[in-house]
């Protein structure tokens, strides 16, 4: 065994190119499809899209590597390549050790099978041998805490029980390399804490962990190094803090790219032309007012709705404001000028971003990073006290204490 010095994972010049249909709209009638088919014969029927390009990095043994990036940066594609779910188009990956993956909790669970049957099925699918499953069976059951329901088909489980059982199987994988995709965001707080501890354990015992997440705080809690992906390219690799710093700084270039509708996801039947706020600075107790405009959309039938997200600098969505909830729909046959007013949301001081989506049955326009604002560090409360009074929680709130001596 000479692999003491060898990295657990070595990735060199890795690239993945997908073929996309060349025609934006699918023909809606058989005749149109036939015409399109005849016209397209002999021509390239697709365009190419580089989901990942020229990625190279090494992961030493026992490292917990966080993979950070925005939606569509290629994080999940990278994980799929590393776990061999899909094949690369270019480049090379060397893996020293077996790879276990937790891409989605409960993959391969069958609703008709009992808890016990599913443990064996899921274990096998995740790459455990029969002996390994048998050896760890009791541990898996104990960790999931559903001993009483092992003979019940999982379709009768509550969603919490289902997730706990699924995670327990996956958490007991004994592979040298473990790839995890956002699975910690499941279950109740207590279960999340135990899961996180389990993951940290894995890294401590010399296993190599790959962790993909939007949740920057879990990356911080779990990982010893990190890489940042941006639109399929590796833009930073190094310490967790350095990566998170680079991630925050990358907002400017990301926002600039997103302001061009061509770079945005969605069908494009409607494209927002502007999103703005009156000021880039707010106080906690101020109303948050977002203005947006959309031009007339000729090809869209029926009205559409708008949904806005307010995200903090950790990537957590603090609030979602969906116009359907207040019965507001927009008519595409007229240019629209809309205004979102958020009252009673007291944000903590820090950087925030606004994503705005226009949707109908599907997403028409997804404008992430449409605006950025900063909440100034003055407290919305009447009294001034030490920092420990405000350090917990992700938002402030408008509260009062009442009571008198009895």
């Amino acid at each position, binding site marked *: 065994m000479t692999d003491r010095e060898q990295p657990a994972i070595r990735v060199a010049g890795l690239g993945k190119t*997908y073929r996309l249909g060349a025609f934006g709209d699918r023909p809606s009638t058989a005749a149109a499809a036939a015409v399109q088919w005849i016209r397209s014969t002999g021509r390239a029927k697709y365009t190419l899209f580089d989901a990942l390009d020229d990625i190279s990095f090494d992961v030493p043994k026992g490292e917990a590597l966080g993979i950070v990036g925005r939606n569509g940066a290629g994080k999940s594609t990278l994980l799929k390549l590393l776990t061999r779910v899909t*094949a690369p188009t270019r480049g090379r990956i060397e893996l020293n050790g077996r790879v276990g*993956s937790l891409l989605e909790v409960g993959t*391969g669970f069958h609703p008709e*099978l009992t808890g016990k049957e599913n443990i064996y099925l899921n274990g096998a699918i995740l790459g455990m041998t029969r002996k390994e499953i048998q050896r760890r069976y009791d541990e898996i059951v104990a960790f999931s805490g559903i001993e009483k329901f092992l003979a019940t088909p999982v379709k009768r489980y509550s969603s919490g029980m289902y997730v706990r059982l699924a995670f327990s199987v996956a958490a007991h994988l004994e592979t040298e390399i473990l790839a995890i995709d956002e699975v910690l965001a499941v279950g109740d707080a207590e279960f999340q804490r135990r899961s996180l501890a389990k993951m940290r354990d894995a890294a401590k015992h010399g296993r190599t962990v790959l962790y993909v997440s939007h949740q920057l705080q879990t990356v911080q809690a779990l990982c010893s190094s990190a890489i940042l992906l941006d639109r399929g390219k590796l833009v930073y690799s190094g310490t967790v803090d350095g990566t998170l710093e680079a991630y925050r700084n990358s907002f400017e270039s990301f926002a600039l790219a997103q302001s061009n509708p061509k770079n945005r996801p969605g069908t494009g039947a409607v494209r927002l032309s502007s999103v703005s706020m009156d000021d880039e600075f707010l106080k906690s107790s101020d109303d948050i007012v977002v203005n947006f405009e959309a031009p007339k959309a000729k090809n869209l039938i029926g009205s559409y709705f708008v949904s806005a997200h307010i995200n903090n600098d950790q990537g957590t969505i603090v609030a979602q404001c969906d116009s359907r909830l207040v019965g507001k729909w927009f008519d595409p046959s007229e240019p629209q000028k809309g205004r979102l007013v958020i009252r009673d949301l007291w944000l903590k001081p820090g950087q925030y971003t606004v994503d705005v989506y226009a949707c109908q049955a599907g997403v028409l326009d997804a404008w992430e990073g449409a605006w950025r604002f900063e909440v100034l560090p003055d407290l919305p409360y009447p009294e001034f006290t030490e920092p420990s009074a405000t350090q917990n929680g992700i938002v402030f709130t408008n509260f009062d204490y009442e009571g008198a001596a009895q």
Partner: protein
Amino acid sequence: MTHDPQRTVITPPGRLNMPAWGEVWAAREVAVRLAQRDIIVRYRQTIFGITWVILQPLVTAGIFTIVFGQIAGLSTGDTPTFVFTLAGMLAWNLFNGSLGRASSSLVGNQSLVQKVFFPRLLVPLSSLAGVVLDFAIGLVLAIVLMIVFGINPGWPVLLLPVWVVLILMIGMGVGLAAAAYMVKYRDVGYVLPWLVQVLMYGSPVAYSLSEVPESLRWIFDINPVTWFLETFRWSLLGTAAPPAWQVVALVVAAPVIFLLGAIVFQKNEREFADYI
């Protein structure tokens, strides 16, 4: 792609990939569990459970006996029509079942194919379990009926397992290729059952070859389904042996069809997750 337990190198797929048999064998537990799942799920929450497996071939053979034997009046030689048809159905269902289940297995396990890695070949292979179970139960029925009717097949019966494996190879070979293409083109799923049905009516499942007019006889002679039906019935029921060249052709063709199917499957394997 090279593979040993400790070290894996992943490179872009080449033009032609042979199945990594070692890797398939190492992950056989997946096939075992998937097969177990298929069989358990099939009869859970049914009142009659396993009875359905017995009922299905009996009812089909009964219908065929009435349609081909009574109404159309086609002869089945010296063997009672019902037993003759049941034996034909057994062999046919081995082929049809393995082909049908293998071809739809990947699309049926879409979420697995998209999310986790294991040798994909295990998915269609595991789908064989249900087919073999149905066959085993049908065979017991056939044996009971043979005792009732006093049919003694003689020594050729010892070759029966060989024919079973060869029939499965043909069905699986075609099924593997179909499964690989169904990932990209669901049309395969619509065309295949129809083609198979045409093939069934064009094969001597429920009537004897002697009933086929001379002018059409050559179509039946070059049909591999005829080869295995005749060979199977010769072994099981002691009917007339097929020409030697058909038996040889069956022995040669079955592994070749299986291997070609496996190669077509493997050629596309690494793209499955992108297209499914």
